[in-house]
């Protein structure tokens, strides 16, 4: 290869080379002159003669320049033109290869763009690597937010943070501006929230100390909300808006790019806990901190653990066994399931890419075999190996270049499609953008691959002398080495398809299992909605509870409504209301448990059709708040009391008074369809002392939701005109939404598996077509000698089916170590099911069989006389 590199080198160091040539010419002229002078010719004459003998040095230098540089540029141009002519001569092949490559690269680039934007790219906040979230880990292994007193103690006692802040995740606010009140997303935050995150308002200021203590007097808005909802009012900072039924001053505008804690947060108001929210056992406040420069996560973890163990000693009832958990804010804001599933999809996409590559290489090899004679002739005519190789590289470069361009378009379309598919499930969707660096990287990899493919195909034929390649062609027995490589490529593809099919089968099966999970209640004929009350009017827990009790009763009276009830957190749709529970009679260090808190109105269990396993539902005097009572779920009963009877036991939560357990309810799925139930305590609505005014209403009715909803809305608004109603859905829709992420993964995987099957089928089909064509004369002779068509088809088919079997076995063997990995990504782990397994086998055999039989039958049907005449 030196000449190749020398020429590149020559182009780069053109100036020096020119000088070199100039000097060489001068020397030569001088030497001629000397010779002339030695022959006795006068100096001037000698010089003239030398010039005459040499010719014009400038013209000569020009020639040299051409020779050195243009050959390589010219050859490249020639190779590319030749390659494009070759591709145009067989447009089907070119189109197929370009599409395969575009598909393989595009799908990968799309998924990787999302992974990069969502998972890998740091948060768009200054020095975001120093930002962490501090969670608490209970002795049962739950990870929960902080309680307010714990948050304050961690803030005061730590040595690792520059500053810390508390905030409530995903709070809903009522925004009224004429018309019906709207729910908007936002967060209640402590004063130092913005400074800790490092964000500055683009107009106005952040809360001052006094404002930080008041709940509803001031608010900060996101720039785009100010523009769309408030018409970019320039005097907004002097105005008040109506939030939660109270006139609120807008004191600052935050940049549109600021999306924390969630992508749809548009409003931030001061965080001021009241009532039970100030209890150490009540965990609802997320904590974030900015580490001092140079402090590591481990150091922060160690420092906070010291504080936590002190708190556990001082407050065993609430903090017994609790430790701290420090995570990077970037990781905290990302659901690990989303990350895992994106990674899983990426792996599947990579398998698809490898298959596409294998297909393209196989196609190129087939073309190469078909053109062996042409290459042989060209070598005989004096084309150098290097030159031939360059032609191969040019061809594959052209192919992959086109494929790459198509892939970029496909990738961007794919990204938009995925964002659309994932919808709300996709965190940081607004940050996803086309990544030109990624496009560059893809292009570089592709070009590298193209050069590699070109070289290997070229080297393939060079092992044999040129004579053989010409002679072989006349006998069409084809280069067996090429066929062997293609065979292994086909086996590889089938194995990949088997793996993808099996993974898809398992995923679909686990998805089906997910849909059939027993939720613990009857999901049919249930209408649900979220109702947010203006917190300016509903300050006390009792006021909120009173509203929902009354509304539930009012709704039950509506025609067509069977019964209605309300709960502070709707199963499957909402979660995160939990805290500690103490059990009477247990030693101090053992008596703290952690459970979900649920407040319900009278008919909740009957509306939801949640059976009580033991005990009874709340009595009227308990519902009215006169007597204290609680109902626990099965998991709680089992975890806390084990074999003993929980009925009549005393527990306490967020206040020292004892509450009697009166019933055990069946477990329902709380946070999602797939998550196993946690311990849960139900309490009468009237015992609610918190301030979160957003509850859910459930209505059982056989009538379609559309016909009932207007009446229900009227009932709510006649009670409280400023209540904001949203998320009106049937329970079936709630369940469907909660598994949408899993559905997307299952759907995409199904697409991938289908593509993999097509790719493997195509690879097999083209190989069998090729080998059958090569064996045509042999088949013709066998046919002429009396072999039945059946026997001939068997003869051709056996070879193809052997490949299918080899691929199948390879895939299944590879499945053994890979399956445990898969269980991490699927939703409900199910045992290997024989029917699903057999189905995968059958689908593969059917596709493989078709890909083998069709070309085999076609080959056998060819008229033997014509074949033999051609010979």
């Amino acid at each position, binding site marked *: 290869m030196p000449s190749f590199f020398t020429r590149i080198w020559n182009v780069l160091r053109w100036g020096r080379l020119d000088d070199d040539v100039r000097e060489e010419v001068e020397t030569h002229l001088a030497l001629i002159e000397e010779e002339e002078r030695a022959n006795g010719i006068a100096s001037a004459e000698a010089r003239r003669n030398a010039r005459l003998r040499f*010719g014009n040095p400038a013209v000569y230098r020009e020639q040299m320049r051409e*020779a050195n540089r243009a050959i390589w540029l010219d050859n490249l141009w020639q190779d590319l033109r030749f390659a494009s002519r070759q591709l145009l001569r067989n447009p089907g092949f070119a189109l197929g290869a370009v599409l395969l490559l575009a598909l393989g690269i595009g799908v990968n680039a799309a998924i990787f763009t999302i992974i990069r934007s969502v998972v890998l790219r740091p948060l768009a906040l200054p020095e975001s690597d120093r930002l962490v979230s501090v969670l608490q880990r209970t002795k049962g292994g739950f990870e929960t937010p902080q309680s307010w007193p714990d948050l304050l103690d961690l803030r005061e006692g730590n040595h690792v943070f520059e500053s810390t802040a508390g905030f409530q995740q995903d709070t809903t606010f009522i925004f009224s501006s004429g018309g019906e009140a709207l729910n908007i997303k936002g967060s209640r935050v402590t004063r130092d929230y913005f400074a800790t995150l490092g964000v500055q308002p683009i107009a106005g200021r952040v809360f001052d100390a006094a404002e930080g203590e008041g709940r509803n007097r001031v608010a900060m808005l996101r720039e785009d909300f100010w523009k769309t909802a408030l018409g970019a009012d320039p005097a907004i900072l002097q105005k008040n808006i109506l939030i939660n039924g109270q006139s609120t001053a807008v004191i600052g505008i935050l940049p549109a790019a600021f999306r924390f804690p969630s992508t749809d947060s548009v409003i931030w108001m001061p965080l001021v806990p009241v009532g039970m929210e100030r209890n150490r056992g009540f965990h609802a406040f997320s904590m974030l901190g900015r580490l001092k420069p140079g402090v590591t996560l481990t150091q922060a973890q160690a420092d906070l653990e010291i504080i936590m163990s002190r708190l556990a000693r001082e407050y065993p009832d609430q903090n017994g066994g609790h430790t701290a958990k420090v995570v990077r804010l970037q990781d905290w804001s990302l659901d690990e399931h989303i990350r895992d599933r994106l990674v899983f999809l990426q792996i599947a996409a990579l398998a698809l890419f490898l298959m596409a590559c294998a297909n393209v290489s196989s196609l190129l090899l087939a073309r190469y075999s078909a053109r062996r004679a042409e290459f042989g002739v060209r070598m005989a005519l004096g084309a150098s190996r290097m030159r031939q190789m360059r032609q191969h590289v040019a061809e594959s470069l052209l192919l992959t270049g086109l494929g790459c361009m198509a892939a970029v378009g496909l990738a961007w379309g794919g990204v938009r499609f995925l964002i659309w598919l994932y919808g709300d499930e996709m965190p940081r969707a607004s940050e996803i953008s086309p990544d030109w660096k990624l496009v560059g990287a893809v292009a570089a990899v592709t070009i590298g691959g193209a050069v590699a493919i070109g070289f290997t195909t070229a080297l393939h034929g060079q092992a044999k002398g040129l004579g053989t390649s010409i002679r072989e062609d006349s006998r069409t027995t084809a280069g067996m080495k090429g066929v062997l490589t293609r065979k292994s490529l086909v086996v590889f593809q089938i194995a990949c398809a088997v793996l993808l099919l099996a993974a898809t089968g398992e995923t679909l099966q686990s998805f089906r299992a997910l849909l059939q999970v027993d939720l613990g209640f009857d999901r049919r004929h249930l209408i649900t909605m979220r109702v947010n009350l203006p917190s300016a009017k509903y300050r006390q827990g009792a006021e909120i509870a009173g509203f929902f009790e009354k509304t539930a009763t009012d709704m039950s009276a509506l025609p067509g409504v069977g019964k209605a009830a309300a709960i502070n957190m709707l199963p499957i749709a909402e979660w995160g209301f939990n805290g500690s529970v103490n059990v009477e009679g247990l030693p101090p260090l053992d008596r703290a448990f952690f459970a979900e808190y649920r407040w319900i109105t009278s008919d909740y269990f009957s509306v939801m059709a949640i059976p009580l396993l033991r005990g009874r539902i709340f009595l009227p005097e308990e519902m009215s708040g006169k007597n204290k009572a609680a109902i626990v779920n099965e998991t709680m009963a089992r975890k806390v009391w084990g074999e003993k009877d929980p009925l009549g036991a005393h527990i306490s939560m967020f206040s020292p008074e004892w509450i009697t357990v009166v019933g055990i309810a069946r477990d329902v799925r709380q946070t999602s369809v797939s998550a196993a139930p946690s311990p849960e305590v139900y309490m009468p609505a009237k015992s609610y002392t918190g301030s979160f005014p957003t509850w859910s209403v459930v209505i059982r009715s056989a009538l379609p939701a559309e016909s009932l909803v207007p009446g229900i809305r009227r009932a709510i608004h006649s009670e409280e005109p400023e209540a904001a109603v949203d998320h009106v859905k049937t329970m079936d829709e709630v369940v469907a939404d909660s598994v949408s992420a899993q559905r997307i993964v299952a759907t995409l995987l199904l697409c991938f598996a289908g593509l993999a099957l097509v790719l493997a089928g195509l690879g097999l089909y083209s190989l069998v077509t090729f080998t059958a064509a090569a064996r045509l004369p042999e088949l013709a002779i066998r046919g002429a000698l009396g072999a039945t068509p059946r026997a001939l088809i068997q003869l051709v088919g056996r070879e193809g089916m052997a490949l299918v079997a080899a691929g199948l076995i390879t895939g299944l063997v590879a499945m053994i170590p890979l399956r445990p990995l898969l269980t991490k990504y699927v939703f409900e782990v199910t045992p290997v099911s024989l029917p699903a397994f057999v189905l995968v086998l059958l689908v593969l055999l059917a596709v493989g069989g078709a890909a083998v039989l069709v070309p085999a039958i076609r080959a056998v049907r060819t008229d033997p006389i014509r074949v033999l005449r051609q010979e």
Partner: protein
Amino acid sequence: MSKPTDLVQGTLDLLILTILALEPMHGWAIAQRIRQMSGEALLVGQSALYPALHKLEQLAWIEAEWKISETNRRAKYYSLTPTGRKALTEEAANWERLSTAISAIVRAV
């Protein structure tokens, strides 16, 4: 055959390689040597010599180095590389075959 001294295409390369196999030399000296050794029958023009030298250099059959000549002048000396030596044997053998074949035909006619 109006130009009897024209070299058959490709033979100049062979001549250069053969001459450089003896010792490293600069362009002018190579031209002189060809003239002398062919008994003044072959005259190599500079316009043919230098492109040939550069082509061989790019093929890495020969390599060049600036040195001071015996007449105390800076000149570019060309010498044979190991690849060049191998190429020379092949080319010489080719030439042998070709010339024998051509002679045989010419004599037969």
